[in-house]
């Protein structure tokens, strides 16, 4: 990868943003689409401003569920992958059931989730977790089994325990995989929470989140406001993605080839 002056890295998203918005307006006027199908960016920002108190409160509520679900997925995903990484037998025995968990449509589990976790926040967290859990497990597991066999030989020779091999060797070398999984989960957390609000949410005590707004704006055909809600959800997502990118940098920049600049 050629070295890019770092100012470009700030300018380019802006340039592509301008292009994107222009394209948007072009599509709107060119295709004869109307505001109730595809509002213009201006209309969306208008709506966001008009609804900003509601949006902010809802975003706050959704953030709680998304964050908790994300953290749960990040930690449980890590732990589960460790378990799967420990032995081929555990992998053979557990992986199929994880797949079943991942592949069962959430709607089927909704009543059970509500019953066991409770409606509202606990249920929302559970749904968010369910949705963002598997990408982490799948990636981290692949990372754990991809360890350089020469390094494994080193640990074997040092008579390292299974646990030491896992924690001091396989886990660090799986970090790029784990972080890629975490990045996927970061994008899934806010939409997972919104979906969770749909499925098991509850409006008690003003705890309605973006999911409620999506639903109401949709029923009430407040399309610009609906897009403003989507925008808000994207902004939440960006917070998660930014956090993961920061973590990625902190963990990898000193030693991993993805941060290697060929020119010093």
């Amino acid at each position, binding site marked *: 990868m050629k070295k890019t002056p770092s100012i470009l890295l700030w300018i380019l998203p802006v340039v592509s943003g301008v292009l994107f918005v222009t394209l948007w307006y072009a599509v709107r006027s060119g295709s004869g689409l*109307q505001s109730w199908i595809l509002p213009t960016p201006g209309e969306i920002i208008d709506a966001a401003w008009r609804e900003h108190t509601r949006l902010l409160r809802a975003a706050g509520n959704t953030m709680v569920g998304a964050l908790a679900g994300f953290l749960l997925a990040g930690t449980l995903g890590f732990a589960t992958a460790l378990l799967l990484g420990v032995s081929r037998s555990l992998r053979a025995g557990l992986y199929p059931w994880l797949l079943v968990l991942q592949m069962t449509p959430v709607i089927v589990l909704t009543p059970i989730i509500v019953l066991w976790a409770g409606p509202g926040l606990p249920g929302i967290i559970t749904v968010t977790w369910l949705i963002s859990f598997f990408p982490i497990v799948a990636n981290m597991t692949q990372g754990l089994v991809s360890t350089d066999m020469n390094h494994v030989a080193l640990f074997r020779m040092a008579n390292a325990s299974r646990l030491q091999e896992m924690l001091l060797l396989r886990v660090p070398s799986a970090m790029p995989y784990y972080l890629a999984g975490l990045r996927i989960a970061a994008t899934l957390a806010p939409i997972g929470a919104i979906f969770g609000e749909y499925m098991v949410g509850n409006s008690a005590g003003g705890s309605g989140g973006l999911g409620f707004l999506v639903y109401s704006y949709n029923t009430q055909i407040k399309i610009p406001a609906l897009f403003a809600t989507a925008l808000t959800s994207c902004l939440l997502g960006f917070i998660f993605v930014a956090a993961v990118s920061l973590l990625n940098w902190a963990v990898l920049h000193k030693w991993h080839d993805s941060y290697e600049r060929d020119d010093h």
Partner: protein
Amino acid sequence: SKQTAEPTTTAGPVKIKFQTDWYPQPEHGGYYQALAKGYYAEEGLDVEILPGGPNAQVMTSVAVGRADLGMTDGDDVIVAIARGVPLKMVGAEMQRNPQGILFHTEHPVKSLKDLQGRTLMAGAGSTWIEVLRKKVGVEFNLLPLVGDLARFMNNTEFVQQCFVTHEPFFARQRGANVGTILIASDTYEPYRVMFTSREFLAKHPDVVGKFIRASVRGWVDYVTGDPAPANKLLAAKDDTMTPEFMAYSIKAMNDYQLVSGDPAKGEFAGQLTAARLEKQIKLLQEVGVLDKPVAVEDVATLEFIPQHKGSRDQTN
């Protein structure tokens, strides 16, 4: 946007598409009856009924010309038109929306006021929820409607939105003692309507008129005559639909006078009145669903509403 209807000068029936808001079910029975009994054909129409689903996008479909006419809840159409979607109501399918509250008889809901403080599973953002909160003055805890009845079955205190023509049958079939109450009341009287796009209306008023006439005829026949022809079509589309269920559904439509309306108030199948629409628009504004007023002429045209006598004559 392209229209499928051809000028009627040529011989042969006019092909049109009609978009329903859900999977084929008895709540669409009138259209299937009209189809099965040839009422559309008699009018020179070749109607294709497009099934919907949970996110049917009925109004969008009609507005962009993917379908020529459609049906859905009346106040949704009012709101859409107020927001600039170029549609117009052209007739009523039901005088009252079958939407109701499903409850266990152990913890009954005798009037809508009984919902005070309870937990209700319903579609967030629905107009009637705002009406209940702001006009009837009841406060309740809202759970989003997913479409499952499992939670309802598991908890006798649970109440949930339903179609009085639909869910109670299955809940009773599973052994629950349930009752229903219609959401529509004197305060809030939503229609279920047929609508089309302004463009189609302007180009083919004759087709619209024929469609309404045949559909209302089909509806009256479906709920008062022998529903077998429509039911056969429905069962072919969805084989989970049993005869018992369809019979129940039709009975509920009659019990609640959904299609025919209340004759004592001068209501009849297919009717839309300017007064009721006016009242509805005002209500929507009062509860904040509509932020600006809209004229009745802009949301509906009454020129296709069949005369009460006429529709009765047709069923004879």
